[in-house]
């Protein structure tokens, strides 16, 4: 009788309704979001390298931020964009922002508006403020991606004659000093596709631009070899990478703002435990069933 009950239990283990699994997963994600507890994130070397590369941009050069992330990967990559922008503006680095595809423009603008708003709400003087045209420029979008990648080696204003808002680019104060890749300290590409490899192939191979990357976790395994060879100056992978960068920004610059990725680390941990548990349960059931046959 005990054996029959046990067999029935094992059968059930291998046939758990997927809706139960989804329900449990939703619960372990929602509860830590509603009742958050602090989870310290330890920054890894690839993220620290990226932070140092942005930190060490010479005063006469600019950060070129490629916000090529679409809405479907916003949760992973947007916190990276916000953290990098906070870092750059806090250190008074000059910033150029662009997107290689049209769907990404709105998200890039949203990140810029949020971070400049955070700084300007605390600014006391004009010098403290982050001002468009002086401290940053939103270049917008020019298709196809190969054109800006190669063209900016000669002239950024040539590739983007007008910025995202329709201003003539070469009339902006910042663009008087930032002419081409020679004036770029590092190019940080935030993307969920193979775009960072293209930046390496065209901007780095031909013009020697340093490339830093923030990518989705799915792309992580593909991109580590490029970090190992030094083609990427630094690398942030997935929401965890974003949380590590947020940690560095808060720790070093004492910027106390909302940290979307860091807040997600606790539900992320619990969700991984649940998935591992179900993988183990499924495998135990499978092996016992196979032995029975």
């Amino acid at each position, binding site marked *: 009788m005990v054996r029959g009950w046990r067999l029935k239990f094992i059968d059930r283990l291998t046939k758990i309704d997927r809706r139960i699994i989804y329900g449990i997963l939703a619960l372990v994600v929602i509860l830590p*979001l509603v009742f958050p507890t602090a989870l310290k994130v330890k920054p890894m070397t690839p993220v620290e390298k990226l932070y140092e590369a942005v930190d060490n941009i010479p005063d006469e050069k600019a950060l070129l931020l490629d916000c090529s992330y679409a809405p479907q990967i916003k949760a*992973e990559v947007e916190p990276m964009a916000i953290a990098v922008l906070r870092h750059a503006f806090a250190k008074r680095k000059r910033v150029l922002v662009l997107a290689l595809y*049209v769907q990404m423009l709105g998200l890039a603008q949203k990140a810029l508006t949020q971070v400049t708003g955070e700084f300007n709400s605390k600014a006391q003087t004009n010098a403290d403020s982050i001002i468009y045209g002086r401290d940053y420029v939103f270049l917008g*979008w020019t298709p196809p991606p190969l054109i800006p990648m190669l063209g900016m080696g000669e002239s950024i204003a040539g590739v983007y004659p007008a910025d995202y808002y329709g201003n003539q680019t070469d009339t902006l104060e910042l663009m008087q000093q930032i002419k081409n890749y020679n004036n770029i300290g590092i190019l940080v590409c935030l993307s969920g596709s193979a775009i960072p490899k293209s930046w390496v192939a065209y901007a780095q191979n031909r013009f020697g631009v340093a490339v830093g990357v923030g990518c989705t976790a799915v792309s992580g395994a593909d991109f580590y070899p490029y970090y190992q*060879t030094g083609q990427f100056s630094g690398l942030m992978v997935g929401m965890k990478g974003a949380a590590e960068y947020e940690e560095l920004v808060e720790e070093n610059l004492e910027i106390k703002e909302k940290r979307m990725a860091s807040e997600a680390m606790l*539900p992320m941990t619990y*969700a991984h435990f649940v998935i591992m548990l179900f993988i183990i349960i499924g495998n135990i059931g499978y092996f016992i069933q196979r032995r029975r046959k």
Partner: protein
Amino acid sequence: MNLSSDPWVWIAALLSLAIFSFLYKENPFYRVAEHVFIGVANGYLVTFYWHNILVPVLFKPLFAGRLILIISFIIGTLYFTRFIPKISWLVRIPIGITIGYYTGAYIPAIIQASIIRQVQGTILTSANFAAWNAGPWGIVWSVIVFIGVLCTLSYFYFSKEHKGVLGVTSRIGIVFVMIGFGAAFGYTVMARVSLLIGRFQFLLGDWLGIIQ
């Protein structure tokens, strides 16, 4: 709880819930959300390309007298010959130009960035040992990468039966391939969980106002 009063947040939240409902089973709410997404995405792209590319880059300069652009206009228009069976072969011209351009632009650059530099990264040199930032352990990691690359390549060598030395190296190669798949799968799980968390952050925060 502080419900959002922004109608756009409500639309986004209800569409998110409609998509989530597919996890229970296929239903009309899911299908409506799916169709709305496809329609909106296509409409957005078409209008954006029209107003930001075709009009300012092609039509305005063309009608202002830059007649050279008529060549681009004609080549682009040839894509539509696909809908006229008698002259549909003309579509090969723009396709050929596109393939030729991108092949020429990509192949040399990709060979340099993704093959030559990657092979350089595999060679056992003191610079590569130092690149790991791991002290003496850098040598160990470099040797592992070196063995891994050689063994994995030997697994994909099919001109000789996998026996003897080749049998051993190809078996080691499989281990490296499996570890690679495992890492990729683990990262994929993390990515999908991240997206789920992102949606819940929106639903519980921006929409319901339960979390700050």
